[in-house]
């Protein structure tokens, strides 16, 4: 195996290349948006990608869940420990709270076949592309945002950035990249048949973004 590595690297190195040469990369311009403009832009872009967006004070979250989940016929919702601690007490009996307690292997059957929705946090959002940014954790594993039909994601209004470049710089990703980082910009979709847009092909059919204000 190392033989191929050597052959490839030798060939590449035999080309005289100047490693100190670096073309000047112009910095991407900033828009200079205010917080409310960013919320507006984020919502507009997400809605264009068929995500639903609601903005509400933090304390209204539980009322929204108690109102909306039964309306949407969501009988159970998957949540991590942290969110569960905040909402378990006040969630009405109409919605069952489910936890991703074990490893995927022992949870696969219910994850794929029994769970209606999931609710996760985010590490932020990007206004100019209309994306929410997730970095799955032990508490909120990777598949929570992929398998259930409905994915609800919470975005703190303070963590909305103008651009993708800004969020990675501000949060120092290059020093500490987690196992998985995701930009999610709508429900799963395809245009593979005659360029006709169809939603919910492999991932969630609905993406609901809740922007929480203080």
């Amino acid at each position, binding site marked *: 195996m190392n033989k191929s590595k050597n052959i490839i690297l030798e060939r590449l190195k035999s080309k005289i290349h100047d490693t100190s040469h670096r073309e000047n990369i112009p910095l991407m311009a900033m828009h200079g948006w205010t917080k409310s403009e960013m919320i507006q832009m984020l919502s507009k872009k997400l809605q264009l990608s068929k995500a639903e967006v609601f903005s509400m004070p933090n304390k209204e979250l539980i009322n929204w869940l108690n109102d909306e989940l039964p309306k949407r016929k969501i009988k159970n919702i998957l949540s991590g420990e942290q969110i569960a601690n905040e909402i378990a007490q006040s969630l009405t009996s109409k919605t069952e709270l489910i936890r991703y307690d074990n490893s995927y292997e022992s949870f696969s059957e219910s994850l794929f076949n029994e769970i209606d929705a999931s609710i996760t946090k985010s590490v932020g959002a990007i206004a100019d592309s*209309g994306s929410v940014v997730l970095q799955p954790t032990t508490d909120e594993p990777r598949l929570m945002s992929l398998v259930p039909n409905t994915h609800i994601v919470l975005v703190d209004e303070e963590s909305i950035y103008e651009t993708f470049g800004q969020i990675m710089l501000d949060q120092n990703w290059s020093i500490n990249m987690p196992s998985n980082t995701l930009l999610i910009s709508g429900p799963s979709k395809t*245009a593979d048949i*005659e360029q006709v847009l169809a939603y919910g092909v492999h991932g969630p059919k609905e993406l609901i973004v809740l922007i929480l204000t203080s």
Partner: protein
Amino acid sequence: MSQVKSLENRVDEALGNEQLQTNFRSAMDYLIEKRSDQFPDKDDLNNLRNTSSSIRSNSLSKLPELLIMLEENLENNNIKVHWAETDIEANNTIYQILKEANAKKVVKGKSMVTEEIELNEFLDSKNIEILETDLGEFLVQLANEKPSHIVMPAIHKSRKEISKVFSEHFPEFPYTEDVDLITQQARKILRDRFREADAGISGVNFAVAETGSLCLVENEGNGRMCTTVPPLHIAVAGIEKVVENLSDVPPLLDILTKSATGQEITTYFNMISSPRKNDEKDGPMVMHVILLDNGRSKIYQNTEMQETLKCIRCGSCINHCPVYTQLGGHAYGTVYPGPIGITLEPQQKGISELGDLTSLCTMCGACAEVCPVQIPLPKLINRLRSETVEGDYMSQFIEGVGSQRKSIESIVWQIWKHIYSHPTLYSICSKTITKLSSFSPKKFGGWSNYRVMPKPSNTSLKELAKQAGFKNE
């Protein structure tokens, strides 16, 4: 010679299929318009193209160093790295990994590089079931065909054809031509397959050396399924996919999705930097990356052609190519069609086999105008064209340089050159031709099959100019 003939046959067939041409024309118009909507401001577009082009040039300028850095950081992240010089070596490595894991069922996310190494055919021959999971690729695989576009693989198939293939394979579902229903049926079928799979295979859009991260761009979520659900994930990346810093990624992602499908951003941008850690509950237990050369290091050595490796596979050159629009993807007979295909493939597989592909270009320049990383495609195609008939130093890098030279063609051009560089001879010839113009042939080889044979005028341009009073004609 057989290749020449078969390319001509494929072109003939494509040109005779009006339905196919209508499908491609409308699909390309749609993609061109969607892209154009994403770039309302020409200055912004130019800035973004400059930035993206610089990032790719910088990555290539220190490619060997970046590959070593990438390997080190991937290994630090518990991702095993393999180097493969050829397609055969890549396939064998993948097979060994699967065999050691006792993997029998594999799901795959859309990846052109695995098409390039013909991984599906190879694993089939080893009795390992490999299933395409991108909806378009899945439909193409069901029909036992090949993708006809690098971004929209099933673009050549009509809804009716797709419905027919689908119902033949899955008679348990009622026949439908409703796109939403077909999509939901595929969702049901493929979700079971993701869960049953022993391994997932994917390509890579960008590999970040600084952090040891693999980036994947997609809309459907099948890529995330393939790289998260099965216990084993194998990613295959061409060695040119590496970028130095994480900060290189945002501009490239931005211009990639806008150029490819005219989307502001795709639904998912997935950055994977580690298999499942001890305290994590999901994700693959084991991850491998294959760094594939397959001709790339030779292209790298060739100063004039190196820019081929800047490509980020958006397909924009294909969408804007008038030849591709007329022919569709299959007539090329290669994995990568369109301008990037006719530039890359002859360099990889050699001019003896694929040199004639370089004739599938009108030199209109549209591809260079839209390329997000400013690859001068017409220039590269023109260079390759001349290499097909005239061997010089490039024979160190490309097989078959000069192999398409035909002696009769060569003699004709020698005579032409001689006449044009001798004014007296030129004058005699042009006078003779104008006098004998009524005897000019009606047919002239293949050229006049599709065109009206022009007739020499009775008076030469030189004489006309003289009559009109020009002194220095």
